[in-house]
């Protein structure tokens, strides 16, 4: 098992490097000139200014040299300087990532904690009211556009009922926890500052629900389908014939088999939540990676794009590793 993990880790590093190379190449071939994006029409019409600007950011060097510089920096924990913000990319990422990770993780847990039991219940009581709810949730979750859902929940729970706070991570007059990890729930809980914890948690609810919707739909649906299949397997019938209680039959015999596809989906979904929150983050004024990514892409900010790509691919690889490991735990046939 340890050996397996080691092999997977090494291959993950290799994969991350390969991915960075590919992204580096592709982003250099896309049409679109950072010069124009950064300097504007007037300055960009002056060749001297352009040449100087290019030299300053190293854009005049050959592609291979630039990639080498990038790799070299990477080894020293340096992702370069963002063209747009003029700050080290790593600093930017460290600043924005916690907000996104916090949001994504809460959404993910929400989707799992609601989706799996709902899917199981829907399969066990097929064609019942629970099943109707589960099917409605999965259909709505998957098909409702994020911006629409976001406006609806904001309008209802913030604007009309006033149950939830408005956009942002904290109340505008509240002070963010200082010198922590950037994960507000964690920081405030550690500091024992329960007032700010409550504030942060309350601000999380609506964006988390919006972001979780699609994942919740998929997980409910997949769990339901996998459970329906497993409940018709011979081994479930054998378990019933043994006189096992229905609870044991469902939760022990069927669910463990049904979780395999759910784990696959969950891994992919979590990675997607981390990187696909642009819309939600924008609407809820959430200072996260999604918005940073969007701004960097719009500005053709290559160092930032490369940094984000690296972080994203590392996340995907890590999540994939976790998925593979949980496979091995769930299904002995995968172990070697």
């Amino acid at each position, binding site marked *: 098992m340890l050996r397996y993990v080691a092999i997977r880790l090494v291959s993950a590093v290799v994969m991350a490097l390969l991915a960075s190379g590919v992204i580096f190449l592709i982003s250099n071939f896309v049409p679109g000139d950072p010069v124009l994006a950064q300097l504007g029409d007037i300055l960009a019409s002056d060749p001297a200014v352009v040449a100087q600007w290019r030299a300053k950011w190293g854009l005049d060097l050959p592609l291979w040299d630039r990639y080498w510089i990038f790799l070299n920096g990477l080894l020293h924990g340096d992702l370069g300087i963002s063209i747009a913000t003029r700050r080290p990319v790593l600093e930017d990422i460290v600043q924005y990532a916690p907000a996104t990770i916090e949001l994504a993780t809460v959404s993910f847990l929400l989707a799992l904690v609601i989706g799996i039991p709902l899917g199981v219940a829907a399969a066990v009581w097929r064609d019942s009211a629970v099943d109707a709810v589960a099917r409605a949730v999965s259909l709505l979750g998957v098909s409702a556009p994020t911006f629409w859902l976001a406006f609806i929940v904001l309008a209802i729970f913030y604007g009309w009922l006033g149950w939830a706070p408005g956009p942002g991570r904290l109340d505008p007059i509240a002070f963010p926890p200082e010198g922590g990890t950037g994960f507000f729930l964690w920081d405030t809980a550690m500091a024992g500052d329960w007032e700010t914890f409550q504030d942060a948690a309350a601000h999380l609810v609506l964006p988390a629900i919006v972001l979780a919707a699609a994942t919740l739909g998929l997980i409910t649906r997949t769990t339901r389908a996998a459970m329906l299949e497993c409940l018709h397997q*011979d*081994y479930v*019938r054998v378990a019933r014939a043994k006189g*096992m209680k229905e609870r044991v039959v469902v939760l022990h015999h069927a669910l*463990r088999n049904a979780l395999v596809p759910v784990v696959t989906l969950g891994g992919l979904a979590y990675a997607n939540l981390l990187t696909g929150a642009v819309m939600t983050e924008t609407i809820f004024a959430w200072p996260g990676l999604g918005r940073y990514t969007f701004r960097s892409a719009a500005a053709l900010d290559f160092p930032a794009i490369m940094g984000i790509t690296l972080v994203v691919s590392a996340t995907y690889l890590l999540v994939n590793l976790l998925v593979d490991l949980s496979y091995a735990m769930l299904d*002995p046939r995968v172990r070697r």
Partner: protein
Amino acid sequence: MSAPVLDVRGLVTVFHTDAGPVRAVDGVSFAVGKGETLGIVGESGSGKSVTAQSLMRLLDPPARIEGGEVLFEGRDVLTMSRRQLTAWRGAGAAMVFQDSLTGLNPVIRILRQVTEHVVAHGRMDRRAARRHGIDLLRRMGVASPERAAASYPHQFSGGMRQRVMIGIGMANDPKLLIADEPTTALDVTIQAQILDLLGNLNEKFGTAIVLISHDLGVIGTICQRIVVMYAGEVVEEGPTAAVLEDPRHPYAWALANAVPRLDSPVAERLPGIEGAPPDPLAMPAGCRFMPRCPWRLSRCGAERPPLVEVAPGRLARCWVTADGRRLPPRTEPLHAKPPQPSTREPLLVARDLVKHFPLPKKTFFGTREVVHAVNGVSLHVMPGERLGIVGESGCGKSTLARLVTRLHRPDAGDIRFDGQDIATLNGEALRRLRPRLQMVFQDPYASLNPRMRVGDILAEPLLVHGRAASPAEAAGRIASLLELVGLNPAWAARFPHEFSGGQRQRISIARALALEPSLIVADEPVSALDVNVQAQVLNLMLDLRERMGLAYLFIAHDLAVVRAFCDRVAVMYLGRIVEEAPARELFAHPAHPYTVSLLSAVPEPGRQRIVLGGEPPSTLRLPQGCAFRARCPVAQRVCAEPPPLTEIAPGHRVLCHAPGSLKGAA
């Protein structure tokens, strides 16, 4: 007989389908006493498995039990509450299912699967259950039970898994064990082991057993009484020997006589009964077997016959035998021609064929493992001859079929077909060979493309090989092909799923015949079919041979089927032919110990069996010396040397140091 353990009265189970209610079990009654083994036999769709599951109330909607009583020691299972039912299942009565691969939970350790219900029923705590479980596995004949207990199902062979399944059933010492086709997925020698095990349980512990099977041989070996089911009804019930020898219902008659047996005549037509069971949505008002019955009376169509006593202790549901008359003995075979010795050149000659399959490497630097599928096989087929290849799963017979049809390319050895060397043919030359050498596959469901109409399936080879320029031109030929295999030419427009298994296999045969081949390689062509349908398809293949002079290479695991169909038989074990002889000779005087034990393992009523221990060794390592040595009851020291191929009678060759040293226990 004391009070029965299980008394089923008028059980009715209905499937509420979209097309209407189907009475899958329609008023079934029977009883099983303590220590008794009752067999329920019938073809697929006869309601025997539904009956089994109804007994334990294991059916899911749309199936519903709508009538009758299932009395277990006087208590009606059908009126038990959920809680009572859970307490009864797995303790009072247990069930063993057909497919041990899907019946065992792949993600739970064996020990837990064998013992969880011992704990759940409060009979033992976990620690005691663990010891009990390991002891149970040992009693079931599972090799190294401690290790087995900690393993997962995928680490076992089919035979071992079935032992575990029976162990699960026996864990709480139930009074009643219901076994639904417990040996159907297993090889004959393993089947013999499992039947032995069931017989022992019955004798030692007095467990009442209901054994459900489509195989009369299996039922006949260990059951004291038989219930024959047809179209949801019991059509005959009586002591096993009486029903097999003197069946009183025409369907039971057909079952008993359509099955090729080791003592039936060689290479002749089987007396099958044509037709198919009635549409369950529209059951005939009278006797349900009437449309297929060769002895029907005018009364049969109008009045449904009751199940009445036709002889002491025997019940049958038939107007013909209701007054105690018997059915005629089996008709004489239509063809009884001895195989003509041919002086012509052989059609197919294979010499020293070898095929190994390397497995993917497990680790980057590890050594590659190799499956030694075929290890030096030589054979020949004369024009018009039927050569049978028998052996258990994993013996390499299917690989051999794929080698001689050149779906695989041999690693070594040569194949001559009609004088031409085909072992290394490629591309166009291989394509030109194809029409003359056709294959029929085992699974008639998987080998026909479900999205193609039957007409298109049959037209494809004609068009590909330029035998017809257009589909329209092919149409005439397709009609005559369908007629040839006994199907209605108008059915060309239908899709495969609209046909039954037997009809699909006819389509497969028609496809093979489309290009007028001279050799058909048939890989288990009837093993997926019900016995009666099996007889129909075998008879068709015999007719076609007579009409078209076809030669067959017929591959099967069922010895009796091979015996009924083939002129000559070769027995394979671990990628080698260990014995080869004319069918009559081979079955009369088997000389290789493996052949002797294989023949002996075939379940037939009232016959002693040699039960081989162990399982075929792994094909990953090529054994030194005789491949069968590890399981051979008469192995000697000399068997570590490669055995010689000896001709002990004309055309009878044996690969053994001491041919004939093991005698069948006849």
